C-alpha cells in the first residue's frame, strides 16, 4: 500500500516535469505537495474529460496507481470540501492540469486544491498543454509516466524510470485500497440541505418505499475500492449495508445472511483478482448480485467471461450507453481502463448471461445480466459523483431484484 506520507512540503510554483514512457517530456510548474527527484511520482497516465467534479475523481479509489490529467483546463475553481470526497484520501498518484486555482470560489469550499493536495502528499503540475497530452494518450495509448519537481530533476532520468515502470496490466491495486475489516454503513446521500452527515435512523423509514433499517434487506458490499456514494445510494434505495474486504471467502459472506451481494468499483487489472472472482462464482445463484465497474468485470469473469485492456480507457461524464431492455440512452459516468470482452460473453454456454448495455461510442460491453442467476452489472458508474444521474435507476433495479428473490 502506498505509504501515507508525512505532510509534505507544499510546492510554490517550482519547475516540474512530466515524463512519459514514450519519451515525451512536458515542463510545467508544481502545485500541491512537492515531490522531488529522490521521491518522484509514478503511475499510469490517464485522462478524464469531465468538466466538473475533480475532487470526487481524485478521491475515487479506482484511480489508485494512476496519474490523472483533466482535459478541462481550469481545475480547482471551486476548491475542495469534505462533502465531495468519495473516500478518505486522494487516490490518484498525481495530477496534471492546464491551470490550477489557488483562490477557490464556492460557498461549500473549505480549502484550496493545492493545499488539499499538499495535505494528502500529492503533487500536481500545471501549465501543461493537456489537450496535446490527451491526443498523445488517445493515439499511442495509456502509458506509464513519472513526475518530479524542484531542483536536480533530470527529465531523461524520469523517462527511463517511466519505461522501467512496466504497465498497469497484471497489477493488483485492490489489495491496497480495500478495507481491512468488515463494517456497516448507514449514511445517506449528500443533499444541499443536509450535506453528507445524515444517517439512517434505525426507527424511522427514510422514504415511503424503504422500511426502517431493522427490517431492510441486507446487502453485503465487497469493497475493491468502493466510492462512498455507492454505499449511500444502496442505503437510500432501501438496503441495510455491510462492507467486507475484497477476498472475503464465500462462506464468510453468506454467514452475514445477505439478501444481495454488491461488487464494487476499484483499481487495477481485473484479471489479477481470482481471489475476488472465486467467491463470487460460488455465491452466484444463491443471492442476487449487482456489480459496478471493476465489480462488473469480476461478475463477467465469474460467469466465464474475459477482460482486456483498452487502448486508453473511458474516463469522463458524457458517454452514451444504450439499455437494451428499454432502447433508451443514458449519459453515463465512466472510469475504466479494462473492459469485458464481448466475444467471450457471447460464447458463454447456455447463454447464461446476456449483454444488457452497450457503449454507443465504440460498442463496447457496458452491462451484462443473467436472469437465471439473478445477477447483473454495468461497466459505467450509475452512482455518478461526479457526473449525470441518468443511470441511478439501476439501484432500484437491484432493490427490486433482491425483494423479488427474498
Amino acid at each position, binding site marked *: 500500500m502506498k505509504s501515507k506520507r508525512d505532510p509534505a512540503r507544499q510546492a510554490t510554483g517550482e519547475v516540474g516535469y512530466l515524463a512519459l514512457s514514450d519519451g515525451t517530456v512536458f515542463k510545467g510548474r508544481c502545485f500541491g505537495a512537492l515531490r522531488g527527484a529522490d521521491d518522484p511520482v509514478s503511475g499510469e497516465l490517464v485522462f478524464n474529460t469531465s468538466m466538473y467534479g475533480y475532487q470526487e475523481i481524485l478521491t475515487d479509489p479506482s484511480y489508485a496507481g494512476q496519474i490523472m490529467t483533466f482535459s478541462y483546463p*481550469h481545475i480547482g475553481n471551486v476548491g475542495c470540501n469534505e462533502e*465531495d470526497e468519495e473516500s478518505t484520501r486522494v487516490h490518484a498518484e498525481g495530477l496534471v492540469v492546464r491551470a490550477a486555482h489557488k483562490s477557490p*470560489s464556492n460557498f461549500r469550499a473549505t480549502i484550496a486544491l493545492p493545499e488539499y493536495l499538499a495535505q494528502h502528499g500529492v503533487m500536481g503540475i500545471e501549465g501543461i498543454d493537456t489537450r496535446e497530452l490527451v491526443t498523445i494518450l488517445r493515439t499511442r495509448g495509456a502509458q506509464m509516466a513519472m513526475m518530479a519537481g524542484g531542483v536536480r530533476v533530470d527529465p531523461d532520468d524520469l523517462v527511463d524510470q517511466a519505461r522501467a515502470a512496466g504497465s498497469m496490466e497484471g497489477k493488483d491495486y485492490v489489495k491496497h485500497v480495500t478495507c481491512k475489516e468488515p463494517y456497516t454503513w448507514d449514511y445517506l446521500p449528500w443533499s444541499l440541505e443536509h450535506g453528507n452527515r445524515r444517517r439512517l435512523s434505525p426507527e424511522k423509514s427514510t422514504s415511503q418505499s424503504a422500511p426502517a433499517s431493522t427490517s431492510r434487506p441486507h446487502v453485503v458490499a465487497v469493497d475493491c475500492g468502493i466510492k462512498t456514494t455507492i454505499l449511500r445510494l444502496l442505503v437510500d434505495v432501501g438496503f441495510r449495508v455491510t462492507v467486507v474486504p475484497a477476498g472475503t471467502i464465500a462462506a464468510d459472506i453468506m454467514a452475514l445472511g445477505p439478501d444481495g451481494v454488491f461488487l464494487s468499483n476499484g483499481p487495477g487489472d481485473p484479471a489479477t483478482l481470482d481471489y475476488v472472482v472465486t467467491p463470487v462464482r460460488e455465491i452466484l445463484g444463491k443471492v442476487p448480485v449487482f456489480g459496478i465497474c471493476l465489480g462488473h468485470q469480476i461478475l463477467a469473469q465469474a460467469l466465464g467471461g474475459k477482460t482486456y485492456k483498452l487502448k486508453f480507457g473511458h474516463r469522463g461524464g458524457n458517454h*452514451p450507453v444504450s439499455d437494451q431492455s428499454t432502447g433508451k440512452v443514458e449519459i453515463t459516468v465512466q472510469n475504466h481502463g479494462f473492459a469485458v470482452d464481448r466475444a467471450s460473453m457471447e460464447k458463454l454456454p447456455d447463454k447464461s448471461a446476456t449483454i444488457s448495455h452497450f457503449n454507443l*461510442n465504440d460498442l463496447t460491453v457496458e452491462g451484462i445480466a443473467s436472469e437465471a442467476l439473478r445477477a447483473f452489472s454495468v461497466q459505467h458508474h450509475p452512482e455518478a459523483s*461526479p*457526473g449525470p444521474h441518468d443511470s441511478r435507476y439501476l439501484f432500484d433495479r437491484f432493490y427490486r431484484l433482491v425483494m423479488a428473490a427474498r
Partner: protein
Amino acid sequence: MPKRNDIKSILLIGSGPIVIGQACEFDYSGTQAIKALKQEGFKVILVNSNPATIMTDPDLADRTYIEPITADFIEEIIRIERPDAVLPTMGGQTALNVALDLAEIGVFERYGCQLIGANIEAIKTAEDRELFRRAMDEIGLESARSVIVTSIEGAEEAARSLGYPMILRPSRTLGGTGGGIVTTPDELLPKVAIALAASPNREVLIEESLLGWKEIELEVMRDHKDNVVIVCGIENLDPMGVHTGDSITVAPIQTLTDKEYQRLRDAAIRIVRRIGVDTGGSNVQFAINPETGRIIVIEMNPRVSRSSALASKATGFPIAKIAAKLAVGYTLDEIRNDITMETPACFEPSIDYVVVKIPRFNFEKFPLADTTLGTQMKSVGEVLSFGRTFKEALQKAIASMELGSFGFDGAKYVQGMGTTEILDACARPTPQRLWQTGEALRLGFPVHEVHKASRIDPWFLEQIKEIVDEEERLKKLALESLDADHFLDLKRQGFMDRRIAALTGRSEGEVRARRHHLGIRPSFKSVDTCAAEFAAHTPYMYSTYDAESESRPTERRKIVILGAGPNRIGQGIEFDYCCVHASMALQADGFETIMINCNPETVSTDYDTSDRLYFEPLTVESVIAIVEHERPEGVIVQMGGQTPLKISAELAELGVPIIGTSVDSIDIAEDRERFSQLVSKLKLTQPPFATARSTEEAVEASRKIGFPLMIRPSFVLGGRAMRILYSEEEVRTYMREGVEVSHDRPVLLDRFLEDAIEVDVDTVSDGRDVLIAGVMEHIEPAGIHSGDSSCCLPPQTLNSDVVQEMRRQAIMLARELQVVGLMNIQFAVPKSGQVYILEVNPRASRTVPFVSKATGVPWAKVASRVMAGTTLAATGAKEVVPDGYVAVKASVFPFSKFAGVDTILGPEMKSTGEVMGIHQSFGGAFLRSQFASNIILPAGGTVFLSVKDGDKDQLLEVARQLQQLRFKLIATEGTANFLRASGVDVERINKVREGSPHIVDALRSRQIDLVINTPEGWRPAMDSKSIRLVANEMRVPTYTTMAATRAAVDALELVRSRQFLSVKALQDYLNCLL
C-alpha cells in the same frame, strides 16, 4: 425510430427582421434546419420577411415566401401550399407567438397540418408565467415569488407583499421588452405603465428580486423517446438582474461543484419533461443563491434560442440541425456527430477550452437612453471568443469587440472618480462595468469589496485581478527585457500585442517583431465536441499559445474571407450574408475557403459554411497569424463591412495578398480630397463640401458651402454623430459639444440637398466590365441615413433619363476606380433633376442582399468570383430589372427598447434590421414592409396629423385620401385650421402645453390609431417629441416624413380589402423574369 413518413412538406417560420433580442442567430438556426430537412427529402416552405438572411436565398428552401410573419399572411401561405407540418421552433419568439395565434384561430385544424418540434400546450406552459409557475410547483422546483398584475393598482398591491426592488416581466415579449427593475415607490407608476403597454395581453409578472444571484443557463435537447442531453452549461459573469442577452457569459460553468451542477442538470431534465417539449432544443435559466445554493427556476424557452446558437458555437454541437431532425422523427442515437463522424449525437459535449461572450451595445446612437442594464435587453450584437483559459478568452473577446480596446485599458471609465464612485460604478451594470471592475482592482480595492459591490463571482474578479496585476508589472518593464518564457506567459494569459505595446510604450509592430524573434507564435486548436477523446474531422479552429497546433494547412488554392465582427447598428447581418456568399461561390469554383469571424450569431461561423473556420477577433494580430499559417492566395476584405476595411491598409502593408478592389482605390473613395479630385476629373457633380479641423475652420467652411449643411466626424460607422445644421450658431455648438476633433480626425461638412430623392446604386465590376445590380429609389428624402430609409426596386418616381444618367456615372466611377467586386453609390436628385454623387463605397453594401433577393441574381457571389479572377462575362451574370412586381425594403428600429428616445429619423443610422415587401403593386409591397416591421396599419380609426409648414401642401392630398378611407382626422390648432380652410373635416385637439385633455392624453387612452408628424427643420421640438415618445410607448404607428406617409396611405387603401393578403412565392416572382 427513423424519420416519419407521414410528413412530406414542412413550413418553417423564420424570425423576421433583426431587432434587439432577436438577431441573426435565427438565420443561422433556420438555415441549418432547412438544409437538414431538405437533406432528408422533405419539401421545405419558408416564410420570413428578412431579405438579408441566407435562409431566404431562393435556392435554399423549395418555396420561399418573403411575407410578414403574421397569422393572416401565414394562413394564406398554408392555404396555398398545404404543408403537412409547421415547424415554429427555429424562428425565435416571433415564430412561437405566431404559432400560438395560428392555433387560436384554428388554422391547423382548418388545413389539416400539424405543429412539429413543439406543441401548443408546451409553448403555452412555458410562455405563460402562471402556468409555468404551477408546473414548477408540481415537480417540486422553486420559482421566484411573484404576482401577476394587469393594472397599476395591482402593482402597488404587489409591492406591499414582495417589497422593493421588484422585477417587472411583461408577458409574451421578446428580449424582455418593457421589463425593468423597480427599486423605489416613485418608479412604480412609469415603469409598470410601460411594462403593461409592452405586453400583447396586458399582463405583467412582478417578481421578488434575485439581484446578485448567480445566473446559469442549460441547453437541453430531447427526442421523442425521451432521451435527453445537456449540450452546454453557461454561466453569466453578470449576476442576476442583467438580461442574459446583455450579460457577459462564460462556458462551461466555472463556479459550481459537480454536486451543484448535477442538481441543475436533474432540474433541467425534469422541467423539459414536465413542460412537454417532445423533441428539440430548449433553454432553461436558473438563479442560484451564491451563499446557500438555493435554486430558483427563472424561465424556459421551448425552442432554439440565442443561447442555443451560442452553445452550438461554443461546443461544435449543431443544436438547430439536430432539433430539425428530431422534429421529423429521428432519435438522438440515430444521428451522427458531424464533427467526430464516428460517435452519435446522443452525448454531452465536453470542452477543453473556455468561451466568453461579450454583448455589443450601441448607446452612442441613443444619447438619451439609460445605459444601465436590466431585465430588458439592450445590446445589438455580441462576440464570442475561445481561449484555453478564461483570461485568454476574456482578453480575446475584448479585442473582438472593435471598440478600440485591446484589454483592460479602462482608466478613462473611472477618471476623476472617488472611492465611492468607483464602487458605485462596479455596482451599476453598464457596458463599461467590466473595465471599471478591472480599474477598481488595479486601484487596490480588494476582490471581496468589488464582489460586494458588483456581485460578480470572486472567481472571475480574481482572474481579472491577475490580468491587471500582470499589467502593472509589465508597465515597469522594457519590451526587450521580456524573455521567451515571460512573453509566452503573457500571450497565454491573452495579452494582445496591442496591449503589450501600450503597456511598454512601443508600437504593435515592434511587439510583434520581438515576439517573432523569440519564436512565439500562436498554435491553433480545434473545437471538436469531445475534448480530443476522439479523432475529429473538424475545420473549426481557434488560436491559443499552447504547444501543439492542430490546424494543418492544405496545399489547395485557398481564399481567406474576413467577416464582419459583432452586429451593430450600421453593420448587421447583410455583411455576414455577403461573406457567406463569397465562401459558397469560391467553394463552387474549387477554392478552399477560410472564414475568420468572431460573431456567434451568424451563418458564417457555422462549422460547415467554409472549408475552415477560425473563430478569432478581426484584428491585425490574429489575421496576420492566420495568413502566415495558411498562406492563402487571396484575402477578401470587401464583404465584411467596415470591420475588415479598417485593417486592410495595414494588412496590405504587411504583405497580405488582398484581392478585389485595391486598398488605394478604397482610399480614394474614403478620402474626401482624393475623391473630389476624381469627381471633377470625371466632370461629375457632388454637393459642395469642406473639411475642418477646428471650430473656426468649420464656421469659415459653412459660409462657403451654404446652409443647410450636413456635418459629421470623419471615418465613422452608420453615420454616428451626423447632424443637419441650419446656422453658424449651430455649427459652433456642434463643434463645441458634438465631436472630438483633431488633426487626424477632422469633421466633414457637406451642403445638404433638401427634398432631394436619394438613390442607392449597387454595381459589380471586374475592372473592365460593369453590371448595374440594382437602382433603388429611397422613399424618405435625402438627409435620412440610407440605412434607415425605405427604398424600392425598381424606382417608382424617377424618370428614365435620370436613371440612365446614374447608370452612366456608376459605370464611369467603377472603371475609374478599377473596382474589382462590389461598389455602392449614393446619389441625390433634387427637384432640378441634377444628379449629385453623395458617396461611393467600393465594397459590399447593406443593400446587396435586398437587391439579390429582388432580382434573383446572387450579386455577392458574382463579385466574389470576379475578385478571385473570373471575368464578369464568364460568370454569366446579367442585369435584371424587376418587371411586374415591386420590392420595398423598410428598416426596423429599436425605439421600443429605449424609453425616452425620440423616434425621429435623421442622418444618424438607428435601425437594427430590415424587411422586404414584394408585391405586384407598390402599395402592396410597402404595406407588407410595414406589417413585417410590426407596424400594423389600422383598417380604420383616428389619425392624428401635425406637419411642418413645408409639408402642408402634401398634407392636403393625404388628408383627403384618409377621409375617403373614412378615417377620422384630428390635429392641433395650426394644422387643423389649415385643413379646415381647405375644406377638410378635422377635429381640433390641444397641444400638451395647452392643457388636458391633450394629444398625449389621447394617445395614452388609445384614441389615436395612426400618427403623422413631420417635425420642423430637423429640430425636434419638445412638444412633438413627447407625442412621438408616447406613440412609441403605446405602439401607435407613426410616420415622420411625408414621403413615407404617402406610401402608407397608399397601403391603407389596400388594408380595407382582404385582397392584400394574396401571397406569391419568391421563386414565382423570379421565374416570371426568365
